[in-house]
């Protein structure tokens, strides 16, 4: 394998990993605080991508489209939270999983209704290339990675420096105590859910120019996002970042070695990690229900 291929492979892996990270963080936060498994994050991802597609067609600016996707992801998440999740926070974990799967499948039906089943291309915002170690690398992919790390920093600051963020962190430890302190837990849940939906919408908007937008796109990344969450450990932000980058690199470098490996290798990595540590890399036993 020559160096050029390796460098572009690593950059590709980082950008894919960034998208996975943005989506998995929502799942991880929702599990940590509300104890739900919110499969419908994949719906907000598709919604974000489709809004990006439509807005970039209408306005001609993809960044505006991504912004619209982010907002749309947040709004849909808010509606779903108010209509459905509100009623099921108290229930078992599997209950939320089944319900959110219903939301995901139903949402895909709605997307098919509005946009049809044909895959749509979204143009890349900038075609510029930058030279890294003698390899031409698309700037857009580097931008995606940069945005993911900015989001990580932002989430970290939010969770550690603001009152709401601190309340969320405390809620991950023990929700009832937080409620006892007089904090409106129900509003906290809504905020967390909207943040998760927004980030999934961002992931969709950023990923759209790199792939074709089609109604099943959520289900296509589903397996990878779950691998990220499982490897990192449910409820851990840092674990999610680390494992997203691992999965991204495994997908990208694996496909350089032997193309079909890209789909299979992450699965093998996940099984290995689960064998050694059934709670994932950073998942603590404390989070056990």
């Amino acid at each position, binding site marked *: 394998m020559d160096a050029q291929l390796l460098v572009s492979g690593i950059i590709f892996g980082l950008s894919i990993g960034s998208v996975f990270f943005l989506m998995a963080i929502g799942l991880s936060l929702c599990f940590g605080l509300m104890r739900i498994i919110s499969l419908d994050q994949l719906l907000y991802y598709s919604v974000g991508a489709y809004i990006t597609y439509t807005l970039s067609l209408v306005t001609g600016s993809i960044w505006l489209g991504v912004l619209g996707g982010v907002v749309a992801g947040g709004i849909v998440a808010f509606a779903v939270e108010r209509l459905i999740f509100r009623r099921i926070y108290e229930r078992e*974990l599997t209950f939320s*999983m089944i319900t959110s799967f*219903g939301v995901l499948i139903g*949402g*895909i039906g709605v997307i098919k209704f509005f946009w049809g089943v044909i895959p749509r291309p979204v143009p890349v915002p900038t075609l510029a290339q930058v030279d890294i170690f003698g390899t031409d690398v698309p700037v857009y992919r580097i931008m995606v990675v940069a945005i993911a790390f900015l989001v990580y920093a932002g989430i970290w600051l939010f969770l550690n420096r603001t009152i709401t963020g601190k309340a969320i962190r405390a809620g991950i430890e023990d929700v009832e105590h937080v409620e006892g302190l007089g904090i409106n837990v129900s509003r906290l849940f809504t905020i967390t859910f909207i943040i998760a939906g927004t980030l999934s919408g961002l992931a969709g908007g950023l990923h759209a120019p790199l792939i074709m937008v089609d109604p099943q796109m959520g289900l296509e990344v589903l397996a990878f996002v*779950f691998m990220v969450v499982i490897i990192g450990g449910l409820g851990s932000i840092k674990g999610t970042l680390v494992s997203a980058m691992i999965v991204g690199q495994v997908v990208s470098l694996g496909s350089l070695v032997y193309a079909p490996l890209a*789909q299979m290798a992450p699965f093998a990595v996940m099984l290995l990690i689960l*064998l050694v540590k059934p709670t994932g890399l950073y998942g603590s036993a404390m989070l056990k229900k």
Partner: protein
Amino acid sequence: MLNAFRWWWGIVLAFALLALSRLYLPLPFVIEVVIFSIYTIGCSFLLGRVGFISFGQPAYLAVGAYGTAFYLFYFGTNPYVGILIGILSGVAVSAIVGPLFVRLRSDYFALVNLALAVIVYYLMQKVLADITKGDNGLWFLTNIASTPVLDLSTPNQFFIFSLLVGVAVWGLYKYLDDTVFGACCMATKINEDKLKFLGYSNYRIRLFAFIIANTTTALAGAMYAIYLGFVSPEITSPARTADPVVVTILGGTGTLYGPIVGSIAYTGMKDVISKYIGNWELFIGFLLVFIMLAGERGIWGTLQPRLQALFSRKKKAAVPAGSGGTQR
């Protein structure tokens, strides 16, 4: 003799009704219902009895279907041997992945199974495209030889065969409910610590239940393969992973006859609705959300206590063990 009759009559009645419905309903519909209910009972058993929810059942369905398909496409012609190979490949795969999966918590278990379904899809569609013919699928309808007694290559006799298989599968699951093993499955769902205290191994019980359930699913896959005469990766496509879970909940989780009732309702609705709306996912998704919010007991779960009350009013004598009376 009487005891044996009491034990069997519910199952025999259910399948006799299915056989009778053949007079009014088209054959493909009834066969679909029978195979689908065999497909679903594995998921229902895992969810209702062992407390494991699995979004990955299509993976095992595909394993059974492809096991049968490989045999009939490349090696032999006897459909019975094909089904046997499908079942054996189901046992093999679940025995390989089982020890890894059943150690996980219920939520991780669901996600890992979902991942497995997607992996199997890609495996069959892309990685093994040379031998599975990718998206085109394997066509082997003409390879299936006629067999004496029950000729599986004719739809009518295949229908009889599928009913017999159904009776056998339901007999097996009803028997499991009566055994110590069935009680242990319930116990591992409700309180694993106490079960450990009684000297049973949670791990072994779960592994055994996992293998039984997924072997049943593989059997359904093998029957699909014989019935349709072709297998394509579509069988395990990510969009269909929710089907068995939807049907399980629709019918009533963990009840013996829930899967049959659910399959009838689901297949019927699919046939009726897909005539009017092409957009099938939209409907399943919202149906699932609705059932979950409406109280998750499902059709049979709601119907059964009423039927039981009706029966016990008619005959004051002991409620028969059949008709799912003792279940749940």
